[in-house]
């Protein structure tokens, strides 16, 4: 685990030294950067990413509160703790509405109070960031979904009217075509409703347990058996470690990635090869396909809701499979990314935590110079 990176800003050398010493005792693994002038704080934060800023209020040239307000504008998710002298508590309380995450009176600065202030600031800021990201994600999803719901609803009504007119007018040559369009629109609606309910379920707090990746992949292979037969496809799986995750979510991740790999594929034998390796306290799964590949400029877009890189007559799809996969991975404290080249297939990498016992085991075996165990 990397040390906590703190930036300490105070013009008084004695206060600076005292606070620095307290921080080193309060937080075992810490890197402290010091500035004596608040005017240099912005540059310092631009040069280096800090986990938390501790800034004195009473400083010449630029006071700590004004500095905190400027920093908040540039770094909305930087935890900032304002340290105040006795008598400034009222001002400090107002500072909480002005961009400061927490404050600590110098008169009450102890090892414990300093540690708690820093931890609280980091935790609160992290939660605020998560809430903002989730809200933005939900807004984007709702916007995309609303648009995509309107289209099939409109088409069903329009083609129903066309068919009615044709029947009333004694013309039927285009009726079958119109009915096919209606059917397609209704199917699209049904797919969107399914996806919406899956998305909603992913928003609930999951329970985590040690999951056998191989068991999950065997289940996915079994559920996709008809599709594999239809496409002459294959799923090849190497032995994999267990992960700490949620069974239903992991199944959805694997299924959505594998289906994508088989669908966007012009090969006579669409294949997805799944391999895994241990990286520290994580298991990284690699899903490699021999599909059509993705241009680099779209690599980030593929995880956005309802983003499609191909028109629906070429490849059908909700445009939400990878969005849901990403949401499920993030909900399990994981990461997902894609490496791809047009014409050369894609590799989706999913990194998830190892169960604690397995992580301890892998650390021990690495220390002994032995390759990590896989189950």
């Amino acid at each position: 685990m990397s040390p906590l990176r703190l930036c300490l800003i105070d013009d008084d050398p004695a206060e600076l030294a005292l606070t620095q010493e307290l921080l080193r005792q309060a937080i075992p693994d810490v890197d402290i950067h010091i500035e004596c002038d608040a005017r240099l704080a912005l540059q310092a934060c631009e040069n280096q990413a800090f986990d938390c800023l501790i800034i004195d209020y009473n400083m010449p040239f630029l006071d700590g509160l004004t500095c905190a307000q400027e920093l908040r504008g540039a770094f909305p998710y930087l935890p900032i703790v304002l340290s105040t002298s006795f008598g400034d508590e009222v001002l400090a309380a107002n500072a909480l509405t002005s961009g400061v995450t927490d404050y600590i009176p110098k008169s009450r600065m102890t090892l414990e109070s300093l540690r708690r202030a820093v931890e609280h600031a980091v935790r609160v800021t992290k939660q605020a960031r998560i809430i903002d990201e989730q809200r933005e994600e939900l807004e984007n999803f709702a916007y995309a979904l609303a648009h995509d719901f309107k289209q099939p609803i409109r088409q069903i009504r329009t083609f129903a009217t066309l068919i009615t007119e044709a029947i009333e007018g004694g013309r039927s040559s285009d009726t079958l075509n119109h009915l096919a369009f209606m059917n397609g629109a209704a199917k699209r609606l049904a797919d969107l409703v399914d996806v919406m309910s899956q998305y909603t379920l992913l928003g609930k707090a999951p329970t985590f347990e040690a999951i056998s990746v191989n068991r999950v992949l065997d289940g996915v292979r079994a559920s996709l058996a008809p599709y594999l037969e239809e496409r002459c496809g294959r799923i090849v799986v190497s032995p994999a470690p267990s992960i700490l995750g949620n069974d239903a979510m992991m199944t959805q991740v694997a299924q959505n990635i594998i289906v994508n790999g088989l669908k966007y594929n012009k090969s006579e034998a669409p294949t997805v090869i799944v391999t895994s390796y241990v990286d520290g306290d994580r298991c990284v799964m690699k899903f490699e396909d021999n599909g059509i590949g993705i241009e680099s400029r779209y690599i980030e877009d593929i995880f956005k809701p309802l983003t499609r890189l191909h028109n629906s007559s070429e490849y059908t799809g909700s445009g939400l499979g990878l969005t849901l996969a990403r949401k499920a991975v993030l909900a399990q404290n994981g990461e997902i990314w894609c490496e791809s080249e047009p014409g050369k297939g894609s590799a989706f990498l999913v990194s998830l935590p190892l169960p604690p016992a397995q992580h301890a085991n892998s650390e021990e075996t690495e220390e002994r110079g032995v390759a990590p165990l896989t189950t």
Partner: protein
Amino acid sequence: MAVPIKVLLVEDNEADAFLTQETLEAGKLHVQIATAVDGVIAIKHLREAVDSPDGLPDLVLLDLNLPRLDGREVLKTIKSDPALRHIPVVMLTSSDSERDIVKSYQLGANCYVTKPVGLESFRAIVNSIEEFWFTVVRLP
């Protein structure tokens, strides 16, 4: 025979492209419709049309959410290209979101039309596009 009005319809959904095309062709004016199923194909079509004997379209009907290159990027490309920017672009989309409307006009759309739910309303909208834009286009 009257010279046909050339329309480039940029629409990825087959059903919507069919409906729009049928409605345009059933209108009063003689139209010649080319379709592009995504933004990349649309821009390619326009760039090739610059030097072709048939010339550029008289009007572009542009959907917003397209694969590969979405409608906003297509619009931006058209309106920033000296050879293309004079072509009227009418956004024809399911979206009635204010941010889409504002953004489209900011990018230079000449008109923004939300596809209505009912067929009669859709016909009325397409006919009004024909009457206004094709007449304007044809003014000396």
